[in-house]
């Protein structure tokens, strides 16, 4: 009580009584959460419906009543059906192979190049950096056509290599790591040189470990982007056994032709789960990595 009487003169201009301000605060809190929860419901609806449909028997899916929890638990049958009629684990494995391969080559090529751009002097450095900046503006769909023609001529369609090759170079990684390396102290590099370390050792044993946060964020960014990419796999892959998760899901849902929603949502759950679980466990890393283009 004494508190309010002391602060009251300070805000004398506003006719707030303690009860009134508490009421207003409650109202504003109520409105805030009402808006946020409405939005959250809109966001969560597909996830919720995916989960409950994946444990519903066909007759409950088809009688189309607005019932959330199934009368009969049919989850086992739906998930078994999804796993036996489509090679879902194979899709996931393909996703891991492709994303892993892309990421390794991206790091191996981008890190030394970024170091050279940040710390070494060589002819054509500015030109190379301009090319990198230009490359940032070219989306994957633009070089797709010529690369497709080249792969078709070399008879390389329907291979892991075809799925990975347009993404081996990440100009974004070069740009990002260059920014990061520029702030690395020159004194340490000079000291390492005096100790007789080669530039190769300096890059991989001194500078790279210091950039781990940026590398981890980029790894998340790259992995999520290529795990979810549909455009390029759709173009170069027609063999079901090579399909990454999005393309595999598309094959499966075309095959089921929208009839067996129980099994379809079970498949969707299985294919969405790995990234969602990873996200829930490493939330900060994920958010940082995926939105890095903007926040950094």
């Amino acid at each position, binding site marked *: 009580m004494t508190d309010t009487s002391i602060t009251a003169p300070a805000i004398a201009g*506003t006719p707030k009584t303690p009860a009134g301000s508490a009421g207003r605060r409650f109202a504003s809190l109520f409105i*805030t*959460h009402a*808006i*946020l929860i409405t*939005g959250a419901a809109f*966001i969560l609806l*597909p*996830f919720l*419906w*995916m989960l409950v*449909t994946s444990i519903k028997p066909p007759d409950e899916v088809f009688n*189309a009543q*607005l019932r959330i929890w199934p009368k009969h638990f049919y989850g086992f049958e739906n998930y078994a059906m999804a796993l036996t009629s489509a090679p879902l684990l194979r899709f996931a494995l393909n996703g891991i192979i492709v994303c892993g391969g892309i990421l390794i080559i991206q790091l191996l*090529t981008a890190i030394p*190049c970024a170091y*050279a*751009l940040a710390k*070494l*002097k*060589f002819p054509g*450095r500015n030109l190379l950096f301009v*090319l990198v900046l230009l*490359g*940032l*503006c*070219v*989306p994957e*769909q*633009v*070089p*797709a*056509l*010529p*690369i497709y*023609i080249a792969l*078709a001529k070399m008879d390389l369609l329907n291979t892991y290599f075809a799925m990975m090759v347009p993404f081996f*170079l990440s100009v974004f990684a070069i740009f990002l790591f260059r920014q990061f390396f520029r702030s690395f102290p020159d004194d340490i590099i000079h000291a390492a040189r005096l100790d007789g370390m080669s530039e190769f050792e300096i890059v991989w044993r001194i500078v790279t470990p210091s950039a781990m946060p940026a590398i981890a964020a980029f790894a998340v960014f790259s992995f*999520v982007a290529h795990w*979810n990419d*549909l*455009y390029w796999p759709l*173009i170069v892959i027609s063999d079901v056994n090579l399909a990454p*998760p999005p393309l595999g*899901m*598309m094959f499966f849902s075309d095959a089921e032709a929208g009839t067996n*929603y129980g099994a379809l*949502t079970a498949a*969707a759950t299985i*294919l969405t789960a790995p*990234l*969602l679980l*990873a996200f829930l466990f490493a*939330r900060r890393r*994920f*958010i940082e990595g995926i*939105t890095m283009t*903007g*926040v*950094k």
Partner: protein
Amino acid sequence: MSVTAVSAPIARPGARQAFIERLVAGGFALPALLLLVLTILVPLGVLAYLSFTDYELGDVDLHYVGLQNITAALTDPEFRRALKNTLLYVAIVLPGSVILSLLVAVLVHRRKRTRSLYEIIYFLPVTSTFIAMATVWQFLLHPSLGPVSAVLRWLGIGEIAFLSNPSLALPTLAVIGIWQLVGFNMILFLAGLSTIPKDLYEAAEIDGCGGEIDRFLTITWPLLGPTTMFVIVTSSITAFKVFDTVAVLTHGGPVGSTEVLLYKVYLEGFQYFRMAYASVLTFIFLIFILVFSILQTVVMDRRVHY
């Protein structure tokens, strides 16, 4: 020019050192440069070359046709429709996702205990494998089996075929696009909000500027300017590149009402194999993206140098 810059002013023991540095740097940059040439520059050159030919996949030889493809594109009613559909899609998704995400970010920003919960929920669509979620959306919006129709029936409105009605299909895809994008933009706005000093709000309160809306208009909105600019540019690019929803949910239909630019490029190039014509369309696509991207690079560069 940078060669002289190295050797002239520095009195280090010799040109040998500088020579080695250039050699090493060249070695470091070479793999990336090679890939840059092979996967970006050469394809761009080939694309430009093909634009002036009549090449179709499988052709043994090709002929120079001048500007024929370009005039064909500019007069092609299907292409015009695709461009119009894409811009309409952007016109819905851009304001929708930016305004909603700004609202959510401002409201979430001041929550303490529930903040991370809301962050997780709104970010879920960004991390989920969208093609899988598209199947779920298809079911949600199914005119006879979906829960949305069930609610509409219960309300007495009746069933609505969201994805097979030509005038509703594109707006429906746009709503799904907003669903995908809100969480991403929210995080960008939250990052922007965290840079606004708290004392500004306190100062405003002392000055008698106490209302929520007042504070938003006098402090938050002006200081969020650069962030908002950035969100608008990235959202435009994302929306302009819409493809997945169309490819999975509507295949460009009904009656072409959702055929967007990138889907048209995909059809011409990789379904009909009319490579020359697809090259021209790709270039038009690139021009739009370039305008957005140059803006983005300028904004990003400025943010990095702060």
